[in-house]
């Protein structure tokens, strides 16, 4: 494949945080790529490293040790200094943050917050910037944009604030939009509107989108491809239909089964035993999901699990998916027992 049809290519990205003098990787050799006009969803529980991946791409983890390659529009980002990185983020690569309550500066008018990013990246005159800011607000569907431009964040509702955050992100027509849980803090009807908006803008600008979320419904609706992360690693990556129709990795299958859905009415939900181990207590050899599927015999796992392509574009880590079955016997005692074991094991 030619370099140029990839907007972003991440190779072996590893982000380590320092805990008590030692570095522990929260993102561990993660590789993926995004093409222009493609939505890649990054899914996983809290602690899986999905947000850390996004923050590493944006160069926002200044204290972490980052290794690996991040090729963005044929530039290597990991070696860039702050000055040159500042030219890219907010410009060609922009981020929509999770919480619209904290992403905006409470002391600045909306107009200022938008013109700030225009000033840093564009060469427009002051007047042009001001009118463009209003245009942007109009573009993201804010009624009476002139008035909202003069408002402070606290005067707006959560949905409106998230629209402002999106307006700031798209101000410089980014080639890559990173959306970190963009709708988690919002009500469902507002969520539907914001997702529509992101989809529409993405089509207009032809941008690639990295969508980070734990909501599998949102993923099914928005993504072209999905990467599932567990304990800092990508464990499965596939086109969206393939992933939902034919999930392979035990973690993906467990996640999909733990959702309350129409077919699950009146029955117990699937529970994944145990918890994601804390960074400094994680076993980094063998299959990381193994402790949470203890009924799978050891020889089913690989010693050194790698992502392997099992059908076109569908990659799965480890061999334990082959004979995997969900342990859904609905036995309450077993789940209580498991919770207890993890508790004493994890904290010992």
């Amino acid at each position, binding site marked *: 494949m030619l370099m140029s049809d990839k907007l972003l290519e991440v190779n072996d990205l590893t982000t380590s945080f320092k805990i008590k003098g030692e570095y522990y990787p929260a993102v561990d050799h993660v590789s993926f790529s995004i093409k222009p006009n493609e939505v890649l969803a990054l899914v996983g*529980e809290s602690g899986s490293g999905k947000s850390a991946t996004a923050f590493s791409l944006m160069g926002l983890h200044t204290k972490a040790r980052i290794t690996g390659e991040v090729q963005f529009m044929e530039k290597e980002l990991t070696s860039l200094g702050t000055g040159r990185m500042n030219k890219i983020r907010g410009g060609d690569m922009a981020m929509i943050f999770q919480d619209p309550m904290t992403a905006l500066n409470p002391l600045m008018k909306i107009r200022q917050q938008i013109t700030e990013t225009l000033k840093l990246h564009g060469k427009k005159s002051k007047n042009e910037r001001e009118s463009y800011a209003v245009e942007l607000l109009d573009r993201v569907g804010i009624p009476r944009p002139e008035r909202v431009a003069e408002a402070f964040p606290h005067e707006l509702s959560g949905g409106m604030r998230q629209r402002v955050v999106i307006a700031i992100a798209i101000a410089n027509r980014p080639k890559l939009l990173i959306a970190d849980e963009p709708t988690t803090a919002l*009500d*469902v009807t507002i969520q539907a509107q914001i997702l529509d908006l992101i989809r529409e803008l993405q089509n207009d600008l032809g941008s690639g989108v990295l969508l980070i979320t734990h909501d599998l419904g949102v993923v099914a*609706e928005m993504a072209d491809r999905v990467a599932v992360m567990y304990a800092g690693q990508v464990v499965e990556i596939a086109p969206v239909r393939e992933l939902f129709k034919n999930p392979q990795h035990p973690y993906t299958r467990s996640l999909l089964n733990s959702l*309350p859905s129409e077919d699950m009415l009146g029955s117990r*939900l699937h*529970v994944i035993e145990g918890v994601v181990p804390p960074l400094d207590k994680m076993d980094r050899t063998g299959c990381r999901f193994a402790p949470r599927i203890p009924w799978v015999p050891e020889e089913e796992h690989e010693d050194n699990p790698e992502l392997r392509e099992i059908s076109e574009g569908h990659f799965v880590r480890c061999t334990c998916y082959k004979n995997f079955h969900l342990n859904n016997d609905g036995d*309450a005692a077993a*789940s209580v027992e498991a919770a*207890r074991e993890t508790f004493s094991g994890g904290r010992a």
Partner: protein
Amino acid sequence: MTLLEIKDLKVHYPIKGGFFNTVKDHVKAVDGVSINIPEGTTYGLVGESGSGKTTTGKAVMGLNHITAGDILFDGRKLNASGKKVDVRDDIQMIFQDPYSSLNARKRVLDIVAEPIRNYHRKPKGELTEEVLDLLDRVGLPRDALYKYPHEFSGGQRQRIGVARAIALNPKLIIADEPVSALDVSVQAQVLNFMQEIQKDMNLTMMFIAHDLGVVRHMCQHIGIMYQGRLVEEGTAEDIFSNPQHIYTKRLIAAIPDTNVDKIERNLEVRQTVKTEYDQNFSESLDDEGRAFPLQSISETHRVALPVKG
């Protein structure tokens, strides 16, 4: 048998202003809500932020001032003037955020024992035994007793919150968004386990949530709130298979589905519902922008429809 009966509940907050700081107007957070919850069932109260669902729950708990209306628990009036009926040990609450609802400076023993200490005098040994029993019931190990909340994961903390709520053998539990702060896999754990406890203790539950998928899984009856009033109420079946009010339809259409085959159709449905909503929504409300009184359309199903005439 009805355990909790809410009759025409109103909770209004005054807006003060002007030179003498006089009352200018009222925020009608809850404006005429009536709900019956039969014993041993779960009632789901659904709505967007600001719809008044939490205020309703808090009013039942006695945490809010009630402007008008009655709350009857087990046939006894809770808000009678003069002599107050003490049912605080029969009604307990599970809070939304397991990170902030537990006192970080207390041990699990003290957190769970606190409600018991408030109502009964018990020797220390007996109290510890009782707390151990409760921990057992919610699936926490015995050595959790002397640990602090920060030593637990989100799901385990929510279990501690549940242990505290069931410590006094309550009849009614108000669960305010108990799983919205949790990951899906942990959410599944807590939901399963709340259902178990409910069955074991024959609990009645009021389940406040904005996630319709979770509510459908947990509740027999569902009420949809909008701007302080119910717009529709019925069995889970009524609400999901036969929604009548445009607001309910819109909420249901907005849920993203994981079934990839249905996505195209869902998006279409959402678009049609949105168009209908934009056109008709103002007609489905009265002059003040509030829902009409509920009218029965079947034995279980009530909808806020305009009065014909």
